């Protein structure tokens, strides 16, 4: 059946929907199986057009309007770095456009599943955003980038693309490409490296990809949630992005993807998900922003609101959630053991290209592991502080920076535990950490 399409440009000014949620529901994934399809039935093109209406054109002046809307909404990248989207788009245009646009769905973060949830349930919204970006930037090619083993996500995307072709939607063609199952496959310079035929490993870039990326052409790499936000902005102006960012809560081996309103507090979020309440002991601490993120003391952030899509941080909001990852540490958990497990994962995930990361991230992981096991001395803590400084900002990608941030915040949030561990007393037997740690294959 061919869906009835609304006239695109004429409706543009009149069509001002109330804020539309991206997901509108919770989607739960088993952390150990996070590439597998979960949640409700994927939305087809008819549902999509019913819910959001047709995608307005983003060519010519409409493209300029869309970029103005991006600017007005101050939309920031949802891949974790929160870089203002409009700055990339303008850099692409300043470099003459006619390059490439990439929707990045290679979600390497083990505690995140929002990109999978979005593509599995709202594939058309992401594809709308990608099409709008391609039109507004006059791109010669559009790519959707995935992990090789994200088969269910790929099926949802392929199905959506088939529906769009069958409906003869006027839009640039999209190539769906994928890279190996690895933490760094979604790092933007690794994406460009892989698309150019090289390994999916980060590269040192002198010039930003938005100026000269794939084949030397200006290239926009934008997370799929950002693309979905673009699709909403193209339809409704700045107010379309009012709902808060997508958040993945990792607890008890389950990744829950949700879209809390921005004025919800962290405590309120956990309460709504049944992770906090009568009879439940509050978390001992909370990891914000994923495995390259920051530990925070629970009481210091419980009453703070979640971040906003425009990257502004009201004084009552939590520190950065990165790609929207929240992982509470259970009351009986050991923050140092969790940190050691995550640092070990990061060290194994290193691309092994940059010396300070090859040696430093590994050394960080080993030293924190000794601390967690109660086999470290005071001198090791001093060494740890020095290592953190030597690793931070020293790689081609941000992996070592994330490892440094994680270790630094662990030392401050868990400093009481640290003293106990230095006396050889561990807070638990050190086995069975709770954060999901994928196996890293070389």
């Amino acid at each position, binding site marked *: 059946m061919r869906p009835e399409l609304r006239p695109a440009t004429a409706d543009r000014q009149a069509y001002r929907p109330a804020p539309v949620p991206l997901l509108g529901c919770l989607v739960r994934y088993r952390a150990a199986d996070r590439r597998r399809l979960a949640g409700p039935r994927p939305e087809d093109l008819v549902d999509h057009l019913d819910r959001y209406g047709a995608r307005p054109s983003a060519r010519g002046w409409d493209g300029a309007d869309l970029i103005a809307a991006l600017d007005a909404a101050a939309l920031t990248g949802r891949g974790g770095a929160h870089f203002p989207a409009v700055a990339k788009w303008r850099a692409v245009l300043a470099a003459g456009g006619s390059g490439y646009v990439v929707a990045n769905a290679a979600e390497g973060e083990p505690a995140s599943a929002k990109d999978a949830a979005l593509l599995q349930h709202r594939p058309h919204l992401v594809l709308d955003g990608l099409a709008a970006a391609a039109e507004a930037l006059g791109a010669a090619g559009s790519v959707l980038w995935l992990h090789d083993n994200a088969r269910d996500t790929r099926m949802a995307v392929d199905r959506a693309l088939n529906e769009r072709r069958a409906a003869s939607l006027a839009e640039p063609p999209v190539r769906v490409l994928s890279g190996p199952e690895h933490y*760094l496959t979604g790092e933007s310079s690794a994406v460009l490296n892989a698309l150019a035929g090289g390994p999916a490993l980060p590269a040192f870039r002198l010039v930003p990809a938005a100026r000269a990326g794939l084949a030397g052409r200006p290239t926009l790499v934008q997370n799929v949630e950002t693309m979905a936000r673009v699709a909403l902005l193209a339809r409704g102006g700045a107010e379309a992005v009012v709902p808060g960012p997508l958040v993945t809560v990792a607890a008890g081996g389950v990744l829950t993807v949700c879209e809390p309103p921005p004025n919800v507090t962290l405590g309120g979020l956990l309460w709504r998900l049944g992770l906090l309440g009568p009879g439940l002991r509050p978390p001992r601490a909370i990891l914000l922003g994923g495995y390259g993120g920051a530990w925070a003391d629970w009481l210091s952030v419980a009453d703070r609101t979640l971040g906003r899509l425009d990257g502004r941080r009201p004084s009552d909001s939590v520190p950065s959630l990165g790609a929207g990852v929240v992982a509470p540490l259970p009351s009986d958990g050991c923050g140092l053991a969790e940190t050691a497990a995550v640092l070990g994962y990061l060290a194994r995930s290193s691309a092994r290209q940059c010396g300070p990361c090859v040696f430093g991230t590994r050394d960080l992981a080993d030293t924190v592991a000794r601390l967690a096991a109660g086999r470290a001395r005071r001198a090791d803590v001093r060494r740890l502080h020095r290592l953190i400084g030597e690793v931070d900002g020293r790689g081609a990608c941000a*992996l070592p920076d994330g490892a440094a941030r994680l270790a630094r915040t662990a030392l401050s949030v868990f400093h009481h535990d640290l003293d106990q561990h230095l006396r050889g007393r561990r807070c638990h037997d050190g086995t069975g950490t709770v954060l999901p740690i994928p196996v890293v294959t070389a």
Partner: protein
Amino acid sequence: MRDSRPAAPARLRVDPVACDGVGMCAHLAPGLIVLDTWGYPIVASALSRRADIRAARAAVAGCPRRALLLEADRQPSWNGTGDPDGGSD
């Protein structure tokens, strides 16, 4: 005598992928580059004296891996790093 007259601001950058930690740079520009625990260079962020620029040029030319760069220190709105969209942080 060090030439401390001002020069156009510049900065050193290391390509950490290309760098093998040979350490030549730290000998050629000792005041500007120190080596970390493993022998990889940590470079001074802002250079604005002629003597420093000269030493930095020598270090750049002396790097056997061509991993050291001297670039004008314009204040770019975006230097192309720290933008790991998706997955990496």
